[in-house]
């Protein structure tokens, strides 16, 4: 793969990539530019690539109509806690399932894996009952506890287990020579090696929490506690009709920062994953 690619092939490849880009870029482009258009222009046909009149008022309205800054903070802090918590829980469980042998291990692993198989719509009613019983509805606890410990975190545990299995057998040996116990081995040796797998887990988890829709709507009822995807549905006119430009402005502000972070972190992330063999 080190050879230079012939120019004709290169042109072909670029052409293909550019064509493929269209369906990926257009909706996002439309979202961002439409947030800068007056409402009457948004659904104009054929769609305009750029607004005829640039109108930034929707962005001001986002903050006026909803406690949007607070909602942004809610989403951000919940997603960060969930990400950190999931990384910790999944790394511990993943390591134990992969490299420690204890009675009942396989049964327990299957029990945990069950979580991977359950759509959230299936368990939302019993979960709501439980949290209501504990007096935790209209708080952020269900949105933090369930993703870390419940079904959504299982994928992370699975990824971590697969990663730890791939580490060479000499690992524990070396750690023992260094005088580390089992826990020390995990914390001082295995965990630092797992950075790329943790990166994958972090991305999955953060996005999952950031985009969570059904759960916040069911659990939360005070606007100041809302999360972003839920807040997006709240920009409506007097008759329940959506205020398109405001909704799209809010949606743009929700998506763009995450995209920027991805752009900045992607090289490290992808190459890190590649070099350490997270191969499932």
């Amino acid at each position, binding site marked *: 793969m080190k050879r230079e690619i012939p120019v004709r092939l290169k042109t072909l490849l670029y052409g293909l990539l550019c064509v493929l880009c269209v369906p990926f870029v*257009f909706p996002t482009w439309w979202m961002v530019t439409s947030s800068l258009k007056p409402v009457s222009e948004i659904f104009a046909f054929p769609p305009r690539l750029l607004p005829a009149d640039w109108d930034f008022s929707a962005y001001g309205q986002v903050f006026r109509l909803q406690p949007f800054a607070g909602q942004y903070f809610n989403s951000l802090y919940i997603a960060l806690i969930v990400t950190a918590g999931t990384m910790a829980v999944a790394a511990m*469980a993943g390591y134990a399932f992969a490299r420690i042998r204890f009675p009942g291990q396989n049964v327990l692993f299957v029990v945990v894996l*069950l979580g991977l198989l359950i759509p959230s719509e*299936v368990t939302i009613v019993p979960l709501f009952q439980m949290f209501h019983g504990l007096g935790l509805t209209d708080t952020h606890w269900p949105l933090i506890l369930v993703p870390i410990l419940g079904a959504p975190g299982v994928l992370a545990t699975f990824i971590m287990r697969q990663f*730890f299995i791939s580490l060479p057998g000499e690992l524990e040996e070396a750690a023992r020579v260094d005088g580390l116990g089992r826990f020390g081995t995990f914390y001082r040796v295995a965990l630092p090696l797992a950075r790329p797998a943790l990166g994958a887990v972090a991305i999955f988890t953060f*996005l999952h929490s950031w985009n969570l829709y059904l759960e916040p709507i069911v659990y939360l009822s005070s606007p100041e506690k809302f999360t972003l995807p839920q807040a997006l549905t709240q920009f409506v006119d007097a008759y329940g009709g959506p205020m398109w430009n405001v909704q799209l402005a809010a949606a743009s502000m929700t998506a763009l920062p995450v995209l920027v972070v991805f752009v900045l972190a*992607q090289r490290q992330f*992808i190459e890190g994953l590649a070099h350490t063999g997270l*191969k*499932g």
Partner: protein
Amino acid sequence: MTGRAAARPAPGGRVAGSGDRAAGSTGNTGSAGSAESAGGGGRIRRARRAPGGGGGGRAFWTVRRRDNLVGYLLVAPQLLGSLLFVLLPLGLVLWYSLHEWNVLAGTFEFVGGENYDRLLADPNLGEVLGGTALFSVGLVVLNLGLALVLAVLLNQRLRGTTFFRTVFFSPVVVSLVAWTIVWQFLLQDDGGLNGLLAVAGADGPNWLRGEGTAMLSVVVVQVLKNVGLNMVLFLAALQGVPAQLYEAAELDGAGAWTRFARITVPLISPTILLTSIITVVGSLQVFAQIAVLTQGGPGMSTTVLVYYLYQQAFQFHHFGYGATLSVLLFAIVALLTVVQWRMRRRWVFNET
């Protein structure tokens, strides 16, 4: 990075066999040899007392017992969470499925297997399951296929791949609501897509209203939204394939396709397994997009199981029957996952 551990002095004695044994017992093939020998070492090691374990009072804490304890402690949070937030709700769902639950009236009556009888007699079920199968197969094939194509394209030594990578990943972070709204607009009979086709001189179909095209549209919109995640995983796997293998194959006169089929695919097969499990499971959980784009229509053609379940429980207030459908969905997902997991022995090259 693995060099760091390997570079340390490794005299015999304690060999980390436990991890590989765990994997081996769930069906490891690739490293079976090493697991066996390492397991032997482990057995010897476990027979010994904990090294440096001071007074006689601590004799109870053998390495093995300490290992067990650490193991349980490490999995405890996850396990407790699974019991509380997965198994318990699942048990409750099973319990509900044996009841007729009218939420509004507040009645909750035990009806035994009545909901299951109803399930078997449900005239819609056949169509729903057919639609679900079509949707999931379509989604998995398209998603994995496109993700692999994109990853291969981006793995060429081209300038600007970072840009394209970002583009293909971007829908993943866009809110689902905004994404579906835009596509609903684009897929109208007089929408953007048919406008584009008209420029090319083609008369596009009424995408969301035709039985076949509605399903295709729902699948494609979903694929475009999420293919970026699988693409990134594939890309990482591709970059992990050693370049020497390709060079050697080329010296042997292997063409591009042969290299792809004989080297790339086997080497990234574990990633294919992981992504296919995630995608299959995910495909059975998609419903918001369907609710927005087609509401399950035209006819029942895009009513997939999870959407049907949602309708029965939340829209029609048949919570008991909804729970029964949940049990069915769960059984299907579990079965599929077990099948996929078993199949890996046959086609995953080296389960690492």
